[in-house]
């Protein structure tokens, strides 16, 4: 059940607990390299119990007002505050109506108790994962310190060039948001900037975010979809609940007036590389192509082919590659015009 070999009772290391009341104050506190932000804490606190992170200062950002809203934008898109809980997204009538995929992806995260506390911002900024890394101190002792912790080796691909970390991006809401071409607002004490969500991710397993010190993601804006668009989010994991994805795939397709020809495809995966993976070859193939079962199979093959898959977290590369192709095909067909715009969010 737990990954710690049965050694329960994991005390948090000591820290100062800070409660800023404004965004400016919070960003000011986070400039310091010894500070980490706490939103839902359902990932941060676990990593702190494992002594992977031991920040002297924990900055609880939940006191910042107005970061937990879900609102419609003129034109039909929506804006979601970074402190919105995953449960609020899962249950929001507006989200379920406009972007049911997103509600499904939020629904697929963790367990209800976690979703009651975990936030959208936390999921977007989720750290990468690896089973040599995400274990308590005792389980790491027999091995050399790994790259993600600043050590000399990566246990996933031991022979490979030093320093490269293969920890996997593992958030569920992100592939959907990227397939929906969402943008994020990043604030610092002085100003803010808006970037496409994909630009938040560095591709580096050690430091997966391009956020600078003192910056916080404050909101996500999702533009409206054209009429007749279809989407799906499929998540493969070992159990029917709790687990992070072995792989998750979001497909958002827009169609021509004939309702058969795919105009544009956005296909994004999680759990397969150190950043969310955009299957650009498959996307290019599907552009202005009728979405037949054959086309879906070929597109799925292109998704699989474009990825370099390593055995990790107990999943063999061969199994993972097969599943990538299988799930890509299913997601595309579910996103097709015959299906309604719904993701299932769980296996």
């Amino acid at each position, binding site marked *: 059940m737990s990954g710690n070999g049965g050694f329960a009772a994991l005390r948090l290391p000591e820290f100062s607990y800070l409660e800023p009341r404004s965004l400016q104050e919070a960003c000011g506190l986070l400039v310091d390299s010894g500070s980490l932000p706490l939103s839902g804490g359902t990932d941060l606190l676990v990593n702190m119990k494992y002594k992977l992170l031991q920040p002297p200062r924990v900055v609880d950002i939940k006191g910042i007002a107005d970061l937990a809203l879900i609102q419609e934008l003129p034109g039909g898109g929506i804006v979601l505050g970074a402190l919105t809980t995953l449960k609020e997204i899962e249950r929001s009538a507006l989200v379920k109506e406009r972007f049911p995929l997103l509600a499904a992806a939020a629904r697929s995260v963790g367990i*209800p108790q976690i979703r009651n506390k975990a936030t959208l911002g936390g999921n977007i900024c989720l750290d990468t994962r690896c089973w040599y890394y995400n274990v308590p101190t005792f389980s790491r002792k027999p091995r050399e310190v790994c790259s993600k912790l600043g050590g000399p080796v990566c246990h996933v691909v031991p022979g490979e060039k030093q320093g490269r970390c293969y920890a996997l991006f593992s958030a569920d809401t992100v592939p959907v948001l990227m397939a929906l071409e969402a943008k994020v607002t990043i604030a610092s004490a002085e100003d803010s900037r808006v970037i496409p969500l994909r630009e938040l991710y560095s591709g580096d397993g050690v430091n997966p975010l391009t956020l600078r010190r003192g910056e916080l993601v404050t909101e996500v804006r999702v533009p409206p979809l054209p009429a007749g668009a279809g989407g799906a989010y499929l998540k493969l994991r070992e159990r029917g609940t709790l687990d992070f994805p072995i792989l998750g795939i979001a497909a958002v397709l827009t169609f021509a007036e004939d309702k058969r020809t795919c105009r544009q495809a956005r296909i994004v995966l999680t759990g397969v590389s150190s950043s969310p993976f955009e299957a650009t070859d498959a996307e290019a193939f599907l552009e202005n192509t009728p979405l037949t079962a054959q086309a879906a199979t070929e597109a799925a093959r292109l998704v699989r082919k474009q990825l370099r898959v390593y055995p990790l977290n107990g999943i063999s590369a061969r199994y993972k590659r097969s599943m990538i192709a299988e799930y890509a095909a299913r997601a595309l067909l579910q996103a097709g015009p015959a299906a309604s715009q719904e993701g299932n969010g769980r296996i």
Partner: protein
Amino acid sequence: MKRGFRLTVNGEPYEVLAAPHATLLEVLREDLGLTGTKEGCDEGTCGACTVLVDRDPWLACLTLVGEVQGKEVRTVEGLAGGRALHPLQESFLEHGAVQCGFCTPGMLMTAAALLAERPHPSEEEVREALEGNFCRCTGYVKIVDAVVAAGGRQNEPV
């Protein structure tokens, strides 16, 4: 450095001297003597530490004491309210939904929140709500039966 935290637990105000790195689970069990909430894994994967915070099930092991200031915390000790037993507690006993009993407080709190929101849940809804509460003994069937049966009985809002 310990400092004072004001908490409300089971309707009672407490002022606790605790370290900022203390979790709600530790404070409940060690400072307040409320040992009904159990520590199963301490890392958010079992649900045994489930308590209600402003009526929502939260994992106390992944909650800092500072995060519940100004909020209402309810534990299994506060489930019955003014009654001898909450209908869920009665139903669990009647249906044989308790074996070793370690998962029981967490199950009860999650189920209580479900019934407060949805008084007559279907079996499917009960199973979904309890996805985050693991049991090694019973195989879940009697727990689900007990919750479904308790639905519709007189339930006070939690």
